[in-house]
């Protein structure tokens, strides 16, 4: 009995860890003409290497709050870089007048609102927050 309890606790902990490690998905507005994107195409836009996406004239990347789990997960999986590396890169770009870092939004819902308002915007949200207002274009 004791062992079963322990097992249950262990399973519960594993589940919690699983839930804490957000599964993210890269999204654009449902009205956007962008269909599917590759990892490199997404990374280029969020790292300031590209300002457009195939099938759209302009790309406006949207970030989530610094230090949030979704943001950590996104940059680790899509760019392979730490938050500090990404911030260093943007310091380099923005203070040489080569671009401004993506605007940081407070939640998945805010990202979806911005996407609905701007067909050029691209963001990332927790997979569980997908709905008809947005279109998934890349899933790491």
């Amino acid at each position, binding site marked *: 009995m004791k062992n079963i309890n322990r097992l249950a606790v262990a399973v519960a902990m594993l589940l919690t860890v699983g839930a804490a490690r957000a599964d993210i998905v890269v999204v654009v507005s449902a009205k956007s003409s962008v269909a599917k994107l590759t990892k490199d195409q997404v990374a280029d836009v969020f790292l300031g*290497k590209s300002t*457009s996406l195939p099938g759209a004239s*302009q790309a406006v990347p949207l970030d989530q709050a*610094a*230090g949030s789990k979704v943001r950590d997960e996104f940059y680790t999986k899509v760019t*392979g870089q*730490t*938050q*500090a*590396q990404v*911030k*260093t*890169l943007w*310091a*380099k770009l*923005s*203070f*040489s*007048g*080569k671009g*401004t870092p993506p*605007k940081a939004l407070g939640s998945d819902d805010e990202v979806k609102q911005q996407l609905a308002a701007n067909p050029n915007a691209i963001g990332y949200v927790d997979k569980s927050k997908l709905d008809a207002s947005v279109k998934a274009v890349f899933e790491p």
Partner: protein
Amino acid sequence: MKSKFPLVTAAVVALCGGAASNAWAGVEDHVTFSGFGTLGGVVTNSDDVDFRRDQQPDGANKTIDTGVDTDLGVQLNVQATSWLSATVQGLALKRYEHDKNMEIEWAFLKATPLPGLSVRAGRMAMSTFLVSDSRNVGYANTWLRAPNEVYGLALLPRIEGGDVTYTKDFGKLRLTGSVTAGHSEANVVGQTIAMHDVHGLNLQMQMGDVTARIGRVTADADAPGIQDTYKFNSLGVSYDKDKVLAQAEYVQRRSDNFYNTVAADGWYAMGGYRFGSLTPYAMVSRTTPQHSNSEAPSMIGTLSGKQATLAAGMRWDATSFAAIKIQYERVDADGTNGISFEKPGPSIFPGLPNTMFISVDTVNVFSATVDFVF
């Protein structure tokens, strides 16, 4: 001397100021205000000479000096339309003359009329190195400061004029070419010299984790007793993948009429490795003055003597907005004036820093900084 504030520069400042003050609420999405800075302290094991960077008039000795690396920059960026933007950056740091410590570093308009094509006009950084635009932004760099043996050789940090840049992708290869033209000022041993007909050419190649660039700058110097053509050739390559970063550059400074005073070569190689938030790095750098037998030996000495530095340091990304760095350097000028030194006391040129007819051997330098962005 030329006007310090030409029309384009003034117009950009006015545009940014107007946008920021009048229409803040309406164009909040179009206006970005940001800043960067460094708080630093440097100490050496010698009281004979001061250790400095670039053309600073004095620097650190056995007493800690906070002027060598400390700086503060603020930047305003106005994205007027999807193809037109304006950028103004104010930067305060210790420069060659005290009344110039705080300056409008850049003020330019940038237009991107076609994908891949951008045109800028105003005051901007001269693209001479791998790290030309952001060398004063400590946070953007792994090293504590750019190696003086290479970066200290350039006499034209910025230009007033225009540039045209074109970027084209060929599969995984990205090529960028840019041409620059305008006028500038050089500061040599505390003297300001007007530079006309400044021309720059830059070619950059990026493929995956490797970036390589080659560049050339030419300019005509015009001052009482000085008619000369200044030339600066540069070559650089960097590699940055996952935890490993490496970078090397080689430059040549040349002069048509004062070869034995001005000519020098410089190079450095640097490597680092990221252990989580800690990035230890090491760097070796060297300046070698060049000599021409077809020209009479220089009566006015050499601007830059021999100098070799071995450096080891560490960057620690302590918080999300600041990095802490420490760096140790063993600087050997081999009995010449080197490039990083100034000798306190009376100068052979009264009122100007004493950097040419001095003799320096080995100096150990310890530096620490906090770099931040906001």
